[in-house]
C-alpha cells in the first residue's frame, strides 16, 4: 500500500518539477515522463497484489478536512480500475513524451506534463477514496486537470469552445454528485462511500432518489446518451495522448462510481436494470451511428467511446437483472462482461487514439477524407491500428469479442431460461449488441480503408513517414494486449470473478461453479482462435510458396477501362457510409454544403461537403440554453441606468415589507 502512496507522491513531485523546469524542454519532459512511468509502475504492484488475492487494510490519514476525512482503501474493484488507469496512463505518457515534442517551441510543455501527472494522480485517488468528500475533491481535481489538458492548444477557437462545454458538463456532474453525497449523508448519517450501507433507515423513495442523482451525476462523466455531448467536443481538442487517457480511462471512473452507487444502495429495483439497459442500448446504437457519420478521425473515436460505454452498460444491466431475479449465472456473466469490456475498451480505445495521434503527428490531418494509403509509409502504425479496429468491432480472435461474447451468453441464457420477465430485456441486450457489432464493423472498415489503404488523397498524407519508436512501443504493447487478453481470457475471468462476487454479493461457491463452466466454454473459444491463427499462418505460407513458383507482375488497379486512375477516383469515407446515413436519416441529419458557381464555357470550381450534427446538441441542448438565456434576459431592464428607478426599488422594497408585515400580524 505504501508503495502506492509513494507512486502517487512521485507523480505529484515529478509534475511540479516538470512545471518549474519548463524553461528547459528536454529536462521537463524527462522529469514529467519518467516520474509518471516510475510512479505508475510503483502503483501497479499493490493493485496486482490485490487482484492476486492479497488484502490491504484501509488507511486513514489524520488529515483534517471540513467534514471529510482522508481515508483510502484498495479493494478488488478499486484495484481493477487502478490497474487499468495506471497501465494505460503509463503507456500514454511514454507516447506523449515524443508526441508533445512537436509543440516544444510554441508551448510550455512543463505545464501540460504537470496537469497530466495531476490527472493520473487524481484518477487513482478517485478509485481508492473511501470518504465521499475526498472522492468529490479527487473527482473535481480530475475534471480540472483534464480541462486544462483539453485546452492545451487554447489559441484555437474550437478548442476554447470544447474546453468550455467539457468543463460545464463535468461541473454539472459534480453538482449532481454533491447532492447525491450530501443526501446520502443526510439520510444515513455516513459519508462512507465504499462498502454497503446500513440502509434499514433508507426509505424506498429515498433510495430511488439517490440512485437517480448518482446515475445522472456519473452518467454525465461516463458519457451516457443523452449526456454524451461533451465527448465529441473534448476528445478531438485534446492532444492524442491525453484523449487516449481520457477516453480509455477517465470516463470509466463514471462507470466505477455507478458500480459503487449500486453497491451502496444494496438490492436494486427492477426499473434500475431497465433504465440502465435502455440507456445502454441507446448509447451503444446512437454512439456508433454518430460515429459512422463523422469525418474527423478523433471525433469518430470519441463517439465510439459512447458506443462502448453503451456495451458496458448493457452488461451491467444484465447483471442487475440477475440480481433482481436471483439468477446467479446472469449476475456473473453480466458483470464479467461489463468489467472485462471496461478493461478491453481501455486497451483498444487507447490504442486507437494513440494510432490516430501518430497519424496526426505524421500528417497533421484529422480529416479521414484527406488521408489514405498510409499503410505504405507507416506500416507498423497501420498494423496496430488494424488490430485495434478488429478488436473494437468485437470480432474474433481479439479481446473485444470475448467480453461481448460473455454478455451475449448471459442474455441468451436469459432468453432460454425459465423466467419470463427476463426475456424482454435480454432480447433488447442481444439485439443491441448485434446492431452495435454490425455497425462498428462497418465504421471501422471505413476508417481503416480510407485512412491506411488505397492511395493518398492529399499531399500531407503522401509526405507522411513512420513515427519514432517511443510512439510505436506503447501501441505495440497495447496491440499485444488485445491478443493476450483474448487468448488468456479463460484465466483472466478467474481473477475478475472475486470482484463480481464483491459487487453482487454472490456466494463464492456458486460463483466458482458458474465460472468453471464459463471458463470451459471460453477455453474452447480460445482453442478455436488458436486454430484459426494457426491455419491462417499455414495457408498464407502455402500461398506464398504457390506464388513464389511463378513471377508476379504489378500493374495499376483495374479501372474497368479507365486508363488514368487518380486518387480522386477512390471511394471516400462519406460515400462509403452514405447508404447507411441515408437509411438512418431520421437520426443522422446530414447537412450538405454545395458551392456551385454554374457553368459557362468551362465548368467553374465547385465544392461539396457534408457534415452531420449531433441531433441531441441541435435538438435538445441548444434550444434549452437559448430559452434559459431568453428568460434571464428578461431581467435586464432592472438595471436600466436610471437612478430614479433604483431609489424606487428601495422604496418599494421597504413599503412591500411593511405591508407584508401587516399581513403577518
Amino acid at each position, binding site marked *: 500500500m505504501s508503495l502506492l502512496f509513494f507512486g502517487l507522491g512521485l507523480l505529484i513531485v515529478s509534475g511540479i518539477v516538470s512545471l518549474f523546469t519548463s524553461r528547459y524542454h528536454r529536462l521537463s519532459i524527462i522529469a514529467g515522463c519518467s516520474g509518471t512511468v516510475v510512479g505508475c509502475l510503483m502503483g501497479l504492484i499493490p493493485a496486482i497484489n490485490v487482484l492476486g488475492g492479497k488484502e490491504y487494510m484501509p488507511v486513514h490519514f489524520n488529515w483534517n478536512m471540513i467534514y471529510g476525512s482522508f481515508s483510502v482503501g484498495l479493494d478488488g474493484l478499486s484495484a481493477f480500475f487502478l490497474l487499468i488507469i495506471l497501465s494505460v496512463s503509463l503507456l500514454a505518457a511514454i507516447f506523449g513524451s515524443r508526441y508533445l515534442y512537436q509543440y516544444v517551441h510554441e508551448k510550455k510543455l512543463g505545464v501540460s506534463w504537470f496537469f497530466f501527472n495531476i490527472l493520473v494522480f487524481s484518477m487513482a485517488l478517485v478509485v481508492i477514496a473511501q470518504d465521499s468528500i475526498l472522492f468529490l475533491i479527487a473527482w473535481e481535481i480530475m475534471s480540472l486537470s483534464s480541462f486544462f489538458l483539453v*485546452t492545451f492548444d487554447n489559441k484555437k477557437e474550437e478548442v*476554447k469552445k470544447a474546453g468550455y462545454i467539457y468543463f460545464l458538463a463535468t461541473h454539472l456532474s459534480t*453538482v449532481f454528485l454533491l447532492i447525491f453525497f*450530501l443526501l446520502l449523508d443526510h439520510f444515513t448519517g455516513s459519508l462512507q462511500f465504499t462498502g454497503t450501507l446500513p440502509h434499514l433507515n433508507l426509505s424506498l423513495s429515498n433510495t430511488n432518489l439517490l440512485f437517480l442523482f448518482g446515475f445522472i451525476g456519473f452518467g454525465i462523466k461516463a458519457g451516457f446518451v443523452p449526456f454524451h455531448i461533451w465527448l465529441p467536443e473534448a476528445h478531438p481538442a485534446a492532444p492524442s495522448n491525453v484523449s487516449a487517457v481520457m477516453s480509455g480511462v477517465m470516463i470509466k471512473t463514471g462507470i466505477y462510481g455507478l458500480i459503487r452507487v449500486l453497491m451502496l444502495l444494496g438490492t436494486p429495483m427492477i426499473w434500475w436494470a431497465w433504465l440502465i439497459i435502455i440507456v445502454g442500448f441507446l448509447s451503444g446504437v446512437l454512439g456508433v451511428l454518430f460515429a459512422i457519420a463523422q469525418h474527423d478521425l478523433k471525433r469518430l473515436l470519441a463517439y465510439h467511446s459512447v458506443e462502448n460505454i453503451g456495451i458496458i452498460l448493457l452488461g451491467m444491466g444484465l447483471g442487475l437483472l440477475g440480481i433482481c431475479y436471483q439468477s446467479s449465472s446472469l449476475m456473473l456473466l453480466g458483470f464479467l462482461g461489463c468489467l472485462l469490456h471496461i478493461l478491453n475498451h481501455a486497451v483498444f480505445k487507447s490504442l486507437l487514439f494513440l494510432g490516430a495521434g501518430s497519424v496526426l503527428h505524421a500528417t497533421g490531418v484529422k480529416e479521414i477524407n484527406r488521408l489514405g494509403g498510409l499503410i505504405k509509409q507507416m506500416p507498423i502504425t497501420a498494423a496496430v491500428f488494424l488490430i485495434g479496429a478488429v478488436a473494437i468491432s468485437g470480432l474474433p480472435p481479439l479481446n473485444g469479442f470475448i467480453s461481448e461474447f460473455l454478455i451475449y451468453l448471459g442474455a441468451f441464457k436469459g432468453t432460454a431460461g425459465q423466467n419470463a420477465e427476463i426475456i424482454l430485456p435480454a432480447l433488447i441486450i442481444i439485439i443491441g449488441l448485434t446492431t452495435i457489432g454490425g455497425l462498428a464493423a462497418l465504421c471501422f472498415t471505413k476508417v481503416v480503408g480510407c485512412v491506411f489503404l488505397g492511395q493518398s488523397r492529399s499531399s500531407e498524407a503522401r509526405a507522411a513517414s513512420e513515427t519514432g519508436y517511443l510512439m510505436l512501443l506503447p501501441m505495440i504493447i497495447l496491440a499485444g494486449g488485445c491478443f493476450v487478453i483474448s487468448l488468456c481470457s479463460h484465466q483472466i475471468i478467474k481473477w475478475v470473478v472475486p470482484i463480481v462476487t464483491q459487487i453482487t454479493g454472490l456466494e463464492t461457491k456458486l460463483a466458482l461453479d458458474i465460472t468453471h463452466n464459463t471458463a470451459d466454454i471460453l477455453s474452447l473459444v480460445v482453442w478455436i482462435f488458436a486454430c484459426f491463427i494457426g491455419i491462417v499462418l499455414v495457408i498464407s505460407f502455402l500461398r506464398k510458396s504457390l506464388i513464389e513458383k511463378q513471377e508476379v507482375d504489378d500493374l495499376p488497379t483495374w479501372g474497368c477501362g479507365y486508363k488514368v486512375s487518380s486518387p480522386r477516383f477512390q471511394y471516400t469515407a462519406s460515400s462509403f457510409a452514405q447508404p447507411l446515413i441515408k437509411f438512418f436519416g431520421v437520426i443522422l441529419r446530414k447537412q450538405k454544403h454545395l458551392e456551385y458557381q454554374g457553368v459557362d464555357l468551362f465548368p467553374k470550381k465547385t465544392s461539396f461537403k457534408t457534415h452531420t450534427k449531433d441531433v441531441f446538441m441541435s435538438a435538445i441542448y441548444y434550444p434549452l440554453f437559448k430559452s434559459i438565456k431568453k428568460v434571464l434576459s428578461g431581467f435586464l431592464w432592472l*438595471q436600466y441606468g436610471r437612478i430614479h428607478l433604483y431609489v424606487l426599488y428601495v422604496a418599494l422594497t421597504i413599503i412591500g*415589507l411593511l405591508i407584508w408585515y401587516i399581513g403577518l400580524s
Partner: protein
Amino acid sequence: MGYEDLLVVMLFVTFSFVLVCQIIRNEKHILSFLWIGVMIVCILAALVVFAVLKEGPLFSCGQRLYVDAFSVYHLAILMIVFLMSSIYANNYFQEEIDSGIFNIKVARRFGTLWFVSLAAMMLVLISNDLGIMWVGMETTTLVTAFLICPYRKKKALEAMWKYLIVCSVGIALAFMGTIIIAASAHKLFSSSTDMFLWTHLHRFGYLLNPGLVKLGFLFIIVGYGTKVGLAPMHTWLPDAHSQAPTPVSAVFSGFMLNTALYCILRYVLLVDTALGSTTFTHGLLIFFGLASILIAASFIPYQHDLKRVLAYSSVEHLGIITLGFGLGALGAVAALFHMFNHSVCKTLTFFCAGRIGRIYKTFDMNTIRGAIHVSPLWGAGLLACALALIGVVPFALFMSELLVVRAAISSGAWIPLGLFLAGITIVFAGVLHHVTELVWGNPQVQLENLYRTSFIEKGMIIVSLGVLIILGLWMPMSFKVVLEHAAQFMN
C-alpha cells in the same frame, strides 16, 4: 495600558495618519506610506485579535466600544483586504503618476480618504453603540464616494452620484431602524444612552417589545442591505465597482459590503433573542440571499465589462453568505468561512483584472483576448481566481459552498437549495464563458506589460492563492476554532 486602550489607540493612529498624508510632499511617497501605515494598523489590529481570542470580549470608552470573536474575525479580514489593496495601489497608479493626473493634490486626498474609510470601517466593527455604528457606516459611504472618482470622469461621476444617493437613502432607512430598535427598549433603561448599547439590548433582549423589534429589523435589513448590495437594492454596486480605481473596487467588494452585513447580523441576534425564535430573521435573510444570487445569475451572462462581472459576482457571493447565515448554526460557520474566502479571492481577482485592464487599456471583454499569452502571471492569476470564484476544487470557496449546501439539506430547506444550485450553476456557466474567452485565444494586437510587477505583488498572488488552496484541502485546527468561536455568536 491594557488591551482595552488598544481599540482607541488603533482608531487614533489611523486618524493621525491622515495628517501624515498632508505633510508628505511626493505622491509616490504617499502611495508607499499607504501600505506602511496600514501595516502598522495591522499590527495593532492583530494584537486586538489575539487579545480577544485569548481573553474574550473587550469593552472600552465606557462600553461604547466592544469587540468579541465575531467582530475580530471581521476585523482580521478587513485588515488583510486593506493591506493587500494598499500594496497593490502602490504600483497601480504608476500610469496616472507618469501622465500627471495623479498629482500630489489628488494623492493627498486619496490618502486621506483611504485612511478615513479604514477608520470608519473599524469604528463600525468595534463600536458597541448602534448609533455610532450607523455614523460609521454613513461615513464610509460619504468617504468612499470620493474614492470612486479621484479625478473627474463622466462615468465615474455618474457612478458616484448613484452610489451617493442610493446608499444615503438606504442608510437613512437604517437609522430609522436603529431608532425603532432602541425605542423598543425605552421602557427598560432610564438613560437613553443605554438604549443604544448593543450589549445591554442583548442582555435584556427577551424584554424588548417584539412588535417594534420586528418593524425595526425590516428597516435595518433594507437600509444596511442597500449597502451590502442585496437585490433589489444592489443597483448602485456594479456601477460603483466598475468605475472605481481597482484598489478601491477591491476594498469595496473585499470588505465594505461585509461591514454592512456585519451590522445586519448584529441586529439579527437582537431580534432573535427578542422574539425567541429565528424564523423571522432567517426567513428574511434567506429571501434576500436568494434574490441576490438569482439576480446576479441573470445579469452575469450579459456583461461586457470585466469589472462589472466581478461586481455582480460580489452580489452573488454576498447573497450566498446571507443565505448561509439564514440557514442556522452550520450555515453560520459556512457563511463566515465563505466570507473570508470571498474577500481574499475577490480582492485578488480585482487586482488581476485591473492589471489586465491596464495592459489592454480597456475592461471591455470583447477586445481582451489571449491575456494569458500577453501576461502569464496576471492572466493565469485571473483564470485561477475566476475558477476559485465559481467554486472549483481545490479552492476553499468550493468547500464553503459545499457547507452551505449541507446546511440547507440538514435544515430541510429544499426550495432554497434548488434555487441556490440553479443560481450558482448559471453563474458558473457565465463567468467561465467570459473568462475563457478573454484569457485564452489569440491576442489580436501586439501588447506588452508596460508596468513591471513587483516581487511583493507576485508573492501576494501566489501566497493568497496558496492559502485558498490549502484551506480548500485542509482545515487548520486553529482556524476551525476561530470560525466556531465566531459562529457561536450567531446562536
